[in-house]
C-alpha cells in the first residue's frame, strides 16, 4: 500500500540515487579541495565581516554617536537588523521542526542548511542587542543571576529582558536540534575520513555513533522531542520580539496585531532567504538532484501564504488606525505612506506585497533565476518593513517640536554589511566542512527500483 502511494508521488530526489551515491555526493564535497567559486564567495564574505568588525570596534571605542541616531530616533539600523536577522532564522526552524512534525518528507534535503541558516541568523541577530547598547561591556547585566549588586535583578517587565530569554533559548534549542540531527551524518564522515585528525574530530563530534538499531531508535525519539520543543519557538520568538514594539506607547508600535504579523513576516523573510541561499548552493555544489525544483516550488508557496498574511497585516494596521479614531495613530500611518520616509514604505509595499504575487505562476515558480531575483526583493522588502516600523514611528511621534529625520552613518551601513559578512562567512564554512544535506534523512526518502543497496 505504502509503496503504491509512494510511486504515485513524484520522487523527492532525482537522478536514480542509491544509498552510496547519496553519501558520495554529500560527503564528497567535503573531501574535495575548495573550488575557486567557493574561495571567491568566502573572501567576499570574510571581507564584509572584517569591515563589520572594524565598524563595530570603532563604534564601541568611540560611542553610539558614530551612528546616525538622535534624541528622537533612538533605534534605527541596529534594531532593524536585529529583527531582520531573527526573522530570517524562522524558516529554518519551521522547516526542520514543524515540517518534520507534519511529516513533510520534502524537507529532508533542505532542513540541514535551513537549520544552519537559522543558527547563523540568530548569531547575527543576537549581536545587535549587545552592540546597540551605550555600554556593551555591561551587557551581562541583562542576565538574571545572583550577584553582589544587591542582588539587583533584571526588569522582568521589560520586553528587552524577554528578548534575552527568547533569543538565547532559540539559539540553544536550534543549535542542539541541528547538532543532534547531524550526528549520524558526522559518523558517516568519520567512517569515510582518510586522515587521522579528521577521523578523530568527527569521531569526537559523532559521540561514538554506531548506527545500530538501538542508536537509531534513541536518535529518532530525541529528534522528535526536540522538534516538538523547537516548534513553539517558531511562534514564540518573534512574538516576543514584536513585544519590543507592541508593549510600547508609541503610535505605530503600540499594536496588538504585531505578534502574528511579525511571525508571518519572519517566516516570509526566512523562506526568501532560504531560497536565496539554496538556489546558489544547489547550483554551486551541484545538488540540483537533491534540492529539486519541487523544493523551490514548495517554498514559494509558503511565501505566497505568509506574504498574504503580511499584506493583510499592513491593511489591518491602516484599518485599525482609521477605526480607532486615534489621531496620533492615524497620523503615523499617513506619515508612513506620504511622509518623508514614504520611499521606504513604498519599497516595503512593493517588495512584500507585489513580489509574492508572481509566485502564483508556475512558469515563474520553476524559473530558478526569477525565483532568485524575487527572493532578493523579499529580503529587501522585509528589511525595510522593520526599518519603516522603527524609524517612521519614532521620527514623528507625539510632540512636533521633537520631530527629526534620520540618516544612517557610514558606520551603521558598514555594520549592516558586516552582519551579512558574518552570516555568509559562517554559511560558507558550513557548506565546506559539514554535510550540507541530511544524508540519513534523504536516504529514507529515496525510491528504490530494485533490491536495497549494500550500504548503511
Amino acid at each position, binding site marked *: 500500500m505504502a509503496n503504491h502511494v509512494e510511486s504515485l508521488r513524484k520522487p523527492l530526489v532525482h537522478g536514480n540515487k542509491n544509498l552510496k551515491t547519496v553519501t558520495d555526493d554529500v560527503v564528497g564535497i567535503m573531501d574535495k579541495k575548495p573550488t575557486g567559486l567557493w574561495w571567491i564567495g568566502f573572501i567576499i564574505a570574510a571581507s564584509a565581516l572584517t569591515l563589520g568588525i572594524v565598524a563595530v570596534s570603532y563604534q564601541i571605542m568611540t560611542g553610539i554617536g558614530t551612528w546616525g541616531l538622535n534624541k528622537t530616533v533612538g533605534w534605527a539600523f541596529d534594531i532593524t537588523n536585529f529583527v531582520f536577522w531573527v526573522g530570517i532564522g524562522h524558516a529554518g526552524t519551521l522547516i526542520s521542526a514543524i515540517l518534520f512534525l507534519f511529516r513533510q518528507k520534502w524537507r529532508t534535503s533542505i532542513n540541514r542548511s535551513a537549520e544552519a541558516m537559522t543558527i547563523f541568523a540568530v548569531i547575527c541577530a543576537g549581536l545587535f542587542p549587545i552592540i546597540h547598547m*551605550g555600554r556593551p561591556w555591561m551587557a551581562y547585566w541583562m542576565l538574571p543571576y545572583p550577584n553582589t549588586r544587591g542582588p539587583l535583578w*533584571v526588569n522582568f517587565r521589560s520586553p*528587552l529582558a524577554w528578548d534575552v530569554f527568547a533569543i538565547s533559548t532559540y539559539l540553544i534549542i536550534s543549535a542542539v536540534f541541528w547538532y543532534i540531527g547531524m550526528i549520524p551524518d558526522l559518523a558517516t564522515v568519520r567512517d569515510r575520513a582518510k586522515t587521522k585528525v579528521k577521523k578523530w574530530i568527527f569521531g569526537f563530534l559523532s559521540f561514538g555513533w554506531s548506527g545500530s538499531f538501538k542508536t537509531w531508535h534513541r536518535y529518532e525519539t530525541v529528534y522528535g522531542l526536540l522538534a516538538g520543543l523547537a516548534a513553539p519557538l517558531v511562534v514564540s520568538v518573534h512574538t516576543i520580539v514584536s513585544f519590543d514594539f507592541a508593549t510600547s506607547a508609541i503610535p505605530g508600535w503600540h499594536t496588538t496585531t504585531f505578534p502574528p504579523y511579525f511571525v508571518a513576516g519572519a517566516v516570509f523573510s526566512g523562506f526568501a532567504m532560504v531560497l536565496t541561499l539554496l538556489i546558489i548552493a544547489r547550483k554551486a555544489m551541484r545538488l540540483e538532484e537533491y534540492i529539486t525544483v519541487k523544493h523551490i516550488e514548495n517554498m514559494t508557496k509558503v511565501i505566497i501564504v505568509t506574504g498574504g498574511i503580511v499584506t493583510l497585516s499592513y491593511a489591518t494596521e491602516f484599518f485599525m488606525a482609521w477605526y480607532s479614531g486615534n489621531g496620533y495613530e492615524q497620523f503615523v500611518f499617513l506619515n508612513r505612506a506620504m511622509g518623508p520616509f514614504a520611499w521606504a514604505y513604498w519599497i516595503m509595499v512593493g517588495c512584500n506585497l507585489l513580489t509574492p504575487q508572481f509566485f502564483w505562476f508556475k512558469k515563474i515558480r520553476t524559473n530558478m533565476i526569477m525565483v532568485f531575483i524575487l527572493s532578493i526583493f523579499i529580503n529587501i522588502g522585509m528589511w525595510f518593513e522593520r526599518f519603516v516600523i522603527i524609524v517612521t514611528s519614532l521620527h514623528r511621534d507625539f510632540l512636533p517640536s521633537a520631530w527629526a529625520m534620520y540618516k544612517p552613518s557610514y558606520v551603521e551601513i558598514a555594520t549592516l554589511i558586516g552582519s551579512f559578512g558574518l552570516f555568509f562567512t559562517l554559511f560558507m564554512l558550513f557548506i565546506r566542512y559539514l554535510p550540507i544535506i541530511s544524508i540519513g534523512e534523504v536516504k529514507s526518502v529515496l525510491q528504490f527500483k530494485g533490491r536495497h543497496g549494500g550500504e548503511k
Partner: protein
Amino acid sequence: MSKEKRYWMTKDDVTSVGSVAGPADLEMTSTEWNRRDFLKTTGFSLAAFMTACSKTPVNKAIPFLIQPEEVIPGKAYWYASTSHACGTGCGVLVKNRDSRPIKLEGSPDHPLSQGGLCPVCQASIIELYDSKRLLHTKLSGKEVSWNDLDKSVVQGLQKAREKGQQIVLLTETVTSPSTIYYIQKFLKKYSNAIHIEYDPISYSAILDAHEVNYGKRILPQYDFEKADMILSLDADFLGTWLSPTQFTKDYRKNRNLEAKHISKHIQVESRLSVSGAKADKRIVKTPAEMLQFVKDIEHSLQGKDGHGIALEIAKELKHYKGKSLVVSGVNDLAIQILVNRLNDALGNIGKTVHLKNPSFQKGGSDFAVAQLLTDMKAGKVGALLIAGVNPVYDLPEGEQFGELMKSIPTTVSFSAKNNETTELCNGVCPSPHYLESWSDDEFTAGVLSMTQPTIQGLGDTQTFRKSIAGWAGFSDDERNLVRNYWKKIYTTRKKGSQSFNRWWDNLVHDGFANIKAKSLSIGRFTKGSLPKSEFNNGLTLMAYPSLQMLDGRHAENPWLQELPDPITKLTWDNAASLSSKKAKELGLSQGEVVKLTANENSVKLPVYIQEGQSDEVIAVSMGYGRKGTERFKNLGPEWIQKKATLGDGELVGERINHLLGRNENTLSFSGISVIISKTGKKKDLALTQTYNTLKNPENTSPPSMEVRPFIQETTFDAYKKDPSSGAHHGHQVVTLWKDDHPYNKHHWGMAVDLNACTGCSACVISCQVENNVPVVGKDEVFRRRDMAWMRIDRYYSGEGDDVDVAFQPMLCQHCDNSPCEPVCPVLATVHSSEGLNQQVYNRCVGTRFCANNCPYKVRRFNWFDYAHNDELENMVLNPDVTVRSRGVMEKCSMCIQRIQEAKFEAKQKGIPLADGDINLACQQSCPADAITFGDLNDPESDISKLVEDPRHYHVLEELNSRPTVGYLTMVRNRKEEKGGNHHG
C-alpha cells in the same frame, strides 16, 4: 531653602577662604585643596613614591592643615553680588562651593532682578574659568608688570598733554559712582582728556529725545507693573531691551489672572521678538511704516483725522490714561520724540515713566562717537583708553576705527579677553571677571548695587577703576577705592542713620542698598520738532541683538552659543531671517547662503525662514562673527563623520555691524536699504526644532486631528466667563488597577504657567549650569543631539505675518505611570517613593528604549564622552551632580540634589519641610515666575492649588502616563476668539 549669606570684612579674609590658583600653575602652586585635588594628588603621590622613590609634591597633599574658619567641605555658601554680564545690573547670589563660585541666582530682594536672572548673566559664570582669558598685562605684545604698564601709559598721557592732543576715555556706560569720581579726577588732572561713553546696542535716541523734550539727557525708568496698556514699538522689553528681567517680573505682576483686569500688550514690530510672541496684539510694520503709525496714533490722540488700527489703539491708550506705557526700541530720534509726546499726552510721566529716578543702565551717545571718529581722522587724539567696549567690532566704522587707532601713540584697552580692539592696542590691561572684583554701581537712581569678589583673582587683573584712579594719582587697593569713596560721600547719599561701617557691612551683605537719588532738574515738557528720519522703503535690513549674544561680548561663551534662540531655535549661527512670502518671491530656501549688501558693505549669511515677520524686512541678529570664536572650531566629539563646528578661518556667525548706518546723531539699526543676492551655497543650520507648528503637515494630517492639543489657549474675556475655557475636554482616564504605589510622604509636582512663560530661556541655562549639562557643538546640535534637559518648544499658529506664538517649556514630566520605566531591562530608570522618575546613571547600559518610549522625548543620551579635560573650565561643575559618562541616558532629575539638600536641612533643624523650601534651578531663575514646584501631598502648597486650577492640564493626558508636570492654559487679553481654543 534658606541661604546663608556671608560677607567678607577685609581683603585678607577673602584670601584666607581658600582659593583657586590661576590656570598656569593650577597643579602645583595652590596651597589649598579641595577634595578631588586631594584624592588625585594623594593617589598620584603614593603611586609615584612607591614606584620611583623620587621627590614628590607630597607636602602639598595636606588639605586644610589649618582649616579656614568658614569653609565646610560640601557646604555651599552664598554671597550677594551684582552681575555685570548683560549690562542690566541684576543683583545676584553667588553659590560658592569649596571656595569657588559655581552658580548664579537672581537676588530676590534686589529691585532689578527680583529673584530672576537672564540667561546671559547666568551663563557668564563659565567665563570666569575661561582658560583663554587675559591674565597678564601686555605692552606691545610683551608681558609686563602693572608698574611698567602704568609708567608707559602715564608717559604717553603726558606726551599727549604736551602735544596738546586729546586724551580720550572711551567706555561703555559707567554706572559706578566711584569710577565716575575717579574719572572726574583723571579728567581734572589731564585737562585735555574727555570721556566718551557709548553702548554697542545703542539707546542714544531715547536719551537724545529726552534732551529735546525735557532738556536733560536721561533714560527714564519704566514701570511695567503699573501699566495697564502697553504699546511697544519694536522694544523687546521681555527679551533684550534695557532691563528685561526686571521688566518681565513687573509685566508678570500685572498679568495676574486672579485680578479683575490684566494689562493689555500691543506690540508693533518688524520682526518677531520674544515680546511680540507674548503680545495680546501684534502688528507687523516696517520701520518706515512704524514711524507713520506712531504719527497716526498721535494724530488720533489729538482728535485729528484718526483712522484704522491707529485710532483704535489711540482710543484704548486714552482709556488707560495715566496707566499706559509707550516704549520704543528703535534708535531713531523722531520715533523717540513721538513716544515721549505720547507718554506725556497720556499723563504717564511720573506714573509709568519715571524721569526723576532715571535709569543709568545706558547713557552712551552715538553722536559723541561720531565726533570721536572725526577727531581721530583729524589726528587730534593722542591717547585712547578703551574700557568695556570693543569699538573695532561694535561700530559700523570699526575697520576704519582700527586703522585710525594705529596712528594714535598711546592706546590702552581694558578687557577680560582678547578682542578685535585689544589686538590693535599697545597696552592691554586684563580686567577681572565681575566675580573677582569690587564694584559699586548705581544702575537705577537710588539703588546702589554692590559687587564683591567671590574668588581670589585667577590672574594678574585689575579693574579700570584702579588703573584710572592710579593714573589720576589715587592708589589704593580695589576694595578701598570703592569703600573710601563711599566713606567720603555717604552722609550725602545714605538713608537712615547707620554708622558708615555698619552701612558698608550691610551693603556688602545684602548686595545693594537704597540710597538717596541725586536730585535732577528735569525741564518742563516741550514738544520739540521732529527731525527727518531716514527709514528706507523697499527691502530693508534690521539688526537686532539676539537674546543669547546681545552685542557679542559673550561670543566666547559656549553655553550661550549653544542656547537656541527662543524664536528661531538656531544655535551656533546668525542668519538672515526672511518672511516665507519674501523667500518664496526671491526663490530662496532655508539654509541657502545669500549676500546682503548695505551701506557699501556686504555679508554672507544663510537664509532662515521666519514666520510673523514683515515681508520687507531682513532681520539679522548682532553679536556674531566675533574674533575669538574660532576657538570653537573643533568643539564637540571627534569621529569620522564629524563636521567641524567652524570651517577654516571661520567665526561663529557673521558680523553685521558694518552694515549699519548712521543718521545725523544716531546709529540706525533698522530701515537700512539692503540688496540681497544669491551665492549658490548652502549652510547647515543647527536648529533644535525644525517643525514649527502643532498643525500636522498638510498631506499627512488625519481629519480627526488637524492640530495637536498640547497648547491650551484662551482669551481673557472667555477666561473671565469660564476659567476652564480653552481646555481640551479629553476622555476621562479610568483605571481598573488600585493604586498600589501610594506616595506617603512627599509627591513632587510641577506646574508651568504658559501664560507667564516668555520663552526667555533663563531656565535652560540655569538647568545647564546646575546639572552639568555638556556643550556638544554645532554638528551634534544639527544632528539633533543637543543635551539640554529643559527645552522650550515654540509653536506658531496663524498664517503669514499674523502669527501667534506659544512657548512650552518641556522637561521630564516625571510620570507616575512612566512609559520609560517598564521598558528598561536593567532597572536603570525607576520611580522614587516621592513620585520622581529617576535615572540611575551607573546602572544604565544604554539601550535607549526608555527614550524611544518617552512620548515627550525629553530623555538625552550620551552619544559620546562629552566630559572634557579643560581643568579650569571644569571648576564650574556642580559637585553635587554626577558628570555622566558615555553611553548612558540622562534627563531632568527635578534637581534632586536641591530636594535632598532642603530635606536634610529641615531634618537637621527638626522642622517639617515647608512649601517653598525647595527651589529648582529652572524655577528659581525664571523671571516670569512661570514655574511652580512643590509637594502634591500638601493640600496647602502652591502646587496643589495650581493642580486644582481650571487652567491646569497635562500634555498627552490620554496616554495615562500620569505626568506630575502640568501646564496652565495661556490666556491672551483679547476680545475675539481668534482661531478658537485650538492652537495650531
